[in-house]
């Protein structure tokens, strides 16, 4: 992206932030929607693995959303001269979505019963997941946007901008999927260990020191 993509005539080198900021935002928002889809599957099938998938997708999307807010602030400072602009709907809506999802983990942690925890978390994930396309659809239909739109930035420039953007987006999506699988494997291993501990605890005091309460789903 630094050698292949051309330097923007208007913003100069600052525009290169676009190739990390926008793919991160798109993947984070898709991750929230994917979390909602997994939550629907969990409520339909009552299979805890779907709850785990929903949890991991939302967890990773929150991490990416932090990155989006930070890189967006840097880009805003470099382009507009301000770290944050409150009258820009895209920024405020993203912050609202981030704050909404920031309550997901505390919600899970506040419910002790694993069955209730997974059910309430799924309802939350579906409601919040439906909120994401609604909000961003409304913002995109709004007039007088200062915030650049990903579509216009890639189609108005030369083809190399589109190619670089698509490669960045694919890379970000693959990173997201890989980290999701990594975290899923880790959570499954932890759950299996916990189950083994419980089985061993029947005969000796090995399982007495069980781990602390967690917001993560329990299989």
């Amino acid at each position, binding site marked *: 992206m630094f050698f292949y993509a051309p330097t923007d005539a208007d913003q100069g080198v*600052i525009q290169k932030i676009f190739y990390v900021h926008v793919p991160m935002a798109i993947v984070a928002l898709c991750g929230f929607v994917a979390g909602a889809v997994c939550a629907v599957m969990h409520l339909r099938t009552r299979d805890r693995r779907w709850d785990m998938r929903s949890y991991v997708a939302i967890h990773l999307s929150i991490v990416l959303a932090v990155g989006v807010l930070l890189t967006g602030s840097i880009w805003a400072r470099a382009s507009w001269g301000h770290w944050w602009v409150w009258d820009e709907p895209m920024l405020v809506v993203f912050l609202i979505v981030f704050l909404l999802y920031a309550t997901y983990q505390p919600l899970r942690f506040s419910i002790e019963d694993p069955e209730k925890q997974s059910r309430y978390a799924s309802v939350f994930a579906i409601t919040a997941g439906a909120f994401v396309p609604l909000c961003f659809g409304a913002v995109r239909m709004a007039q007088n946007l200062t915030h650049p739109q990903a579509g216009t930035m890639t189609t108005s420039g030369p083809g190399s901008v589109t190619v670089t953007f698509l490669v960045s987006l694919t890379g970000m999506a693959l990173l997201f999927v890989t980290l999701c699988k990594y975290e899923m494997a880790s959570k499954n291993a932890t759950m299996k260990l916990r189950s083994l501990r419980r089985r061993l605890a029947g005969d*000796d005091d090995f399982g007495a020191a069980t781990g602390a309460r967690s917001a993560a789903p329990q299989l």
Partner: protein
Amino acid sequence: MTGALPIAAGDGYVAAAYLIFLFLVLSYLAIMAVKLGRIEREVVEIADAVDRRADAAEAVSQRTKEPVA
């Protein structure tokens, strides 16, 4: 979007944005590595407990096989 800063001054901002992304990914990987280390320790602990139980069970079976004088 009008450039509030000269282009040369933008290099630092671009570097900062990419470093933040790198920092997030590396922090995530570091946290996952710590969790993986904990899982490994627990596996060793459970394997030891299983071995101890197997040894104890073997000792009991040996004792029951010994002839009573």
